[in-house]
């Protein structure tokens, strides 16, 4: 292994030095000469008709450069949706227009009505208060089931209803599933809500539009997880700027969790306004704005049914889900409840028949899109809760019931279209039983009881489809983009490397982990490798970071490019060593001739590539720089088993997490420390969803959880010590690193463990409670206990 860490080393994160010392460079740290500031006047009603907007007084206020309204965007494209779902009748989804600034109607609290550009942010805000807007209130639709009733007010008047699509999967299985339910020895039914969440990355969104008339060049600096995707969507679909005249830069980004994947109206506005005013235009979201303009997550209402035979084998599964789209379709919103949710409903189990129905619904709320896990947590939560309920109804051990139904042979083609390449679910469950010390539970239960506390144990499994994914497959499923990844590896004359990757790092640690891979491949120090990302001007076209895909897809592209580098370097080395190329071996940063003591150092070869005095110019070009695009042929399938122990205070209903264990199979591991951190963070978010977080609208569409006074984020003392293990490794069979991805696992696997544990605690105390909807706040648990 290289001295400062190759594959498998817990190398400390090099980027943390700048993050922790205050020298990180975030979008809000950037200021362009002469920049103006924009303030968005946002709707304070959920649904209304814009009767008039009078900007006369506001436009005359100090410092105001210009006030824009929806009328300024007539003829300009709307915010596009990147995924088209086809419904169960073979028809495309209903796809409403999404103007940059509201036109005709406002459709959620926070919908931008006007944008004031002024010399200072305060002047812009002052002027916005002087804009006179006359809005006729319309009745709001908030509840999804009411939204699809006949005669419900329509969010979009030009659509036939508030139903975006009615998706059935696999439609051909529907009758067989129905038959299996009729034949079942036992059917367990569970209705549940996957609570709506607000991502709350530490850094709010920021956008700066810049325009250089000299070269007719637009630049957008933005807090994005995927600058190339923003360039494509905004350039091609909204503003009509060709990609070679548009640069998108995402510098250090302070967390994304999915909500910074999407192309937002504020980005398009700043780019548009900068061109119109010939002046940079900057927007920095306030935290309050973030609550009502960042895409929200989850928000499913489901009924799931599990059919079992007399021997407790799962025979069929069906689920009906209402999925909230909010008022407009955010970039990947339609894919989340379908292709990231329905296709995961098999979980870790060999259920032969599955039918998934999803009704996606428009409501007068903020758009909903991918949030850490995106569809897979919703699938896992439904499945692992209904299995737990079935075990309790049947009086069997929940772990034994799961084990009995585990998939054990791979590859395994599920009845919901995907094929798992590898896995060993018994191994992760064995490991979980060990690290969670399940054999010691009874003693801990007794100890809790002695203090008057109810203790419960919850266990669940999960599987996810990561490394998103094969372009030809997602294209068939409705994606309007490819999902490959790219890397350019540039070797300098003195032997150092720069890797320009399409994967964006906003907390994942790419700048540390990616060099470890190259260090291992070449046998040089990781410190000789620099990672460059986040700027369309220097990185090749990449699809960005989400879906736990960076190492599996972006890392694989980097491996492919590095393989090309090594192949060429071997040719140069063969020339220098006067040997046959086939005899050249690369080890520990030196090329040697097999079976001899002749060798040439990595640095001598790279120097020769750029100072080609003694060089086979007739055979190969000078220089050492290669690009590769990698498009995998399948998703990756990380899996695992999680256990949570809670204590419930019977007097107050407050549940606290006492122990948490996670046994994951991520395939091969590059940096175990970073993986630990990813799992820790994911579990913290899962515990947040299970116990604390919940976005609440009132029936008029006012956001009741519009600040941290009412939206409960998990804090350090809400989460326990985590027993985390990833020693069970079944390497991915189809990418060169054998890696599967670990970014979302914690958030996917943890909510059912927590809820299963609370239900267990209450049932052990004699309660007949079978379910409580998240978040399991003290008041909800108490209300359930006192029903």
């Amino acid at each position, binding site marked *: 292994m290289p001295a400062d860490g190759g594959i498998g080393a817990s190398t400390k994160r090099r980027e943390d030095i700048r993050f922790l010392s205050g020298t990180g460079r975030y979008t809000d740290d950037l200021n362009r000469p002469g920049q103006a500031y924009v303030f968005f006047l946002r709707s304070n009603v959920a649904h209304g008709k814009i009767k008039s907007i009078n900007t006369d007084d506001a436009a005359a206020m100090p410092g105001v450069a210009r006030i824009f309204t929806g009328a300024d965007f007539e003829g300009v494209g709307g915010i596009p949706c990147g995924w088209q779902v086809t419904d169960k009748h073979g028809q495309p989804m209903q796809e409403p227009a999404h103007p940059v600034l509201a036109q005709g109607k406002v459709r959620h609290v926070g919908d931008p009505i006007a944008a004031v550009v002024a010399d200072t942010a305060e002047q812009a805000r002052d002027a916005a208060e002087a804009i006179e807007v006359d809005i006729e209130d319309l009745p709001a639709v908030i509840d999804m089931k009411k939204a699809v009733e006949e005669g419900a007010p329509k969010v979009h008047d030009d659509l036939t209803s508030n139903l975006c699509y009615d998706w059935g999967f696999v439609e051909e299985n529907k009758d067989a599933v129905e038959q299996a339910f009729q034949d079942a020895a036992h059917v367990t039914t569970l209705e549940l809500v996957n609570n709506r969440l607000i991502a709350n990355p530490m850094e709010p969104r920021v956008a700066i539009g810049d325009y250089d008339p000299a070269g007719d060049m637009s630049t957008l600096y933005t807090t994005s997880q995927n600058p190339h995707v923003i360039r494509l969507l905004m350039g091609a679909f909204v503003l009509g700027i060709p990609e070679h005249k548009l640069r998108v830069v995402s510098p250090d980004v302070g967390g994304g969790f999915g909500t910074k994947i999407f192309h937002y109206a504020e980005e398009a506005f700043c780019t548009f306004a900068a061109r119109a005013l010939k002046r940079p235009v900057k927007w920095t979201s306030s935290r309050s704005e973030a609550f009502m303009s960042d895409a929200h997550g989850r928000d499913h209402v489901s009924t799931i049914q599990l059919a079992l035979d007399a021997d407790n084998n799962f025979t069929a599964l069906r689920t009906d889900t209402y999925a909230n789209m909010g008022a407009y379709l955010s970039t990947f919103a339609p894919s989340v409840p379908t292709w990231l949710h329905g296709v995961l409903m098999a979980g870790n189990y060999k259920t032969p028949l599955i039918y998934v129905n999803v009704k996606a619904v428009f409501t007068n709320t903020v758009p909903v899109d991918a949030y850490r896990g995106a569809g897979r947590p919703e699938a896992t939560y439904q499945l692992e809760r209904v299995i737990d309920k079935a075990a309790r109804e049947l009086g069997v051990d929940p772990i034994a019931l799961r084990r009995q139904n585990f998939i054990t042979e791979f590859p395994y083609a599920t009845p919901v279209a995907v094929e798992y390449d590898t896995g060993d679910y018994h191994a992760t469950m064995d490991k979980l039983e060990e690290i969670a010390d399940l054999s010691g539970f009874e003693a801990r239960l007794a100890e809790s009881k002695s203090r008057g506390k109810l203790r419960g144990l919850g266990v669940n499994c999960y599987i996810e489809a990561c490394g998103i994914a094969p372009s030809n497959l997602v294209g068939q499923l409705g994606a309007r983009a490819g999902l490959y990844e790219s890397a350019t590896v540039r070797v300098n004359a003195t032997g150092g490397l720069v890797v320009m990757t399409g994967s964006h790092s906003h907390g994942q640690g790419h700048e540390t982990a990616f060099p470890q891979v190259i260090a291992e491949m070449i046998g040089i120090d990781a410190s000789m490798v620099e990672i460059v990302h986040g700027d369309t001007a220097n990185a090749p076209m990449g699809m960005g970071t989400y879906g736990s895909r960076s190492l599996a897809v972006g890392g694989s592209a980097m491996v492919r490019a590095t393989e090309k580098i090594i192949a060429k370097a071997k040719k140069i080395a063969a020339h220098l060593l006067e040997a046959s190329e086939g005899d050249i071996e690369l080890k520990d940063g030196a090329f040697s001739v097999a079976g001899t003591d002749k060798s040439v150092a990595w640095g001598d070869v790279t120097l020769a590539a750029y100072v080609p005095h003694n060089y086979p110019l007739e055979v190969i070009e000078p220089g050492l720089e290669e690009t590769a695009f990698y498009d995998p042929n399948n998703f990756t399938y990380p899996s695992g088993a999680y256990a949570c122990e809670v204590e419930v205070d019977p007097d107050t209903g407050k549940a606290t997490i006492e122990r948490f264990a996670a046994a994951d199979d991520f395939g091969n591991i590059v940096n175990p420390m970073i993986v630990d951190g990813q799992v820790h963070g994911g579990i913290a978010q899962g515990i947040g969803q299970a*116990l604390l977080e*919940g976005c609440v609208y009132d029936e008029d569409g006012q956001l009741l*959880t519009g600040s941290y006074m*009412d939206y409960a984020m998990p804090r350090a003392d809400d989460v326990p010590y985590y027993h985390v293990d990833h020693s069970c490794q079944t390497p991915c069979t189809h990418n060169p690193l054998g890696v599967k991805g670990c970014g979302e696992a914690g958030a996917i696997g943890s909510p059912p463990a927590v809820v299963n544990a609370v239900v267990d605690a209450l049932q052990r105390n004699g309660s007949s409670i079978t379910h409580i909807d998240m978040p399991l706040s*003290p008041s909800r648990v108490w209300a359930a206990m006192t029903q």
Partner: protein
Amino acid sequence: MYDFELTRPTSLADAIKALGEEDAQPLSGGQTLVPTLRQRLAMPSTLVSLTGIEELKGIKNEGGTLTIGGATCHADVARDGTYPALSELAGLIGDPHVRNRGTIGGSIANNDPSACYPAAALGSGATIVTNNREVAADDFFTGMFETALDEGEIVTGVKFPVPEKAAYVKFEQPASRFALVGVFVSKGADGVRVAVTGASEGGVFRWSEAEDALSSNFSPDALDGLSVPADGMIGDMHGSPAYRAHLVGVLTKRAVAKAG
């Protein structure tokens, strides 16, 4: 926030004079007022800072009475320890930032229905000292965000009789970590007091039924069978009126047990 003038008087007399100006408002630690200003929900023309006035700061213990200057921050009260239940309460308010900026006078004068200090003042039988009078806590807190303070009158200090026994138990609202319900109990020369914050639509209140029961038997058992009605309790996404009423009973028992 909107523009305003900020004056920083160094004497109480100058502060009172400045507060006599039109639209002038006192600014103490600013832990409620500054966020309100930032959201443009208030537009004072002048803010009179009280935190530069030395005579409003500090903690004095005289003959069993603890006098805390109105501009004393929570962290100083938490560190003091003379009145352990009060110091513990102060140490549980907000986070270190809040505790080192927020002041007891500001909290008492604001009378947030979920704030902790009003429970301590009412539950200790404290006296609120203003620039021109002294008001018993029983008469000071008049309703949610309402007090007996007149226009231009400020809290210069709070006098706490240090009781024989006292304890505060707070059940936190999960998001804000203000008191969803907080109960302060004390047993002193003037009897037993039970003050409840967070629960009632009328703001902090004394639970007299519990006080009566505890007067003859200061033990958790004395509260068996007692409950406050849900009627008039706050109901929101964090807890129904019935839940808050229930918590009053639970927390009062715990506070009595903790007071010993």
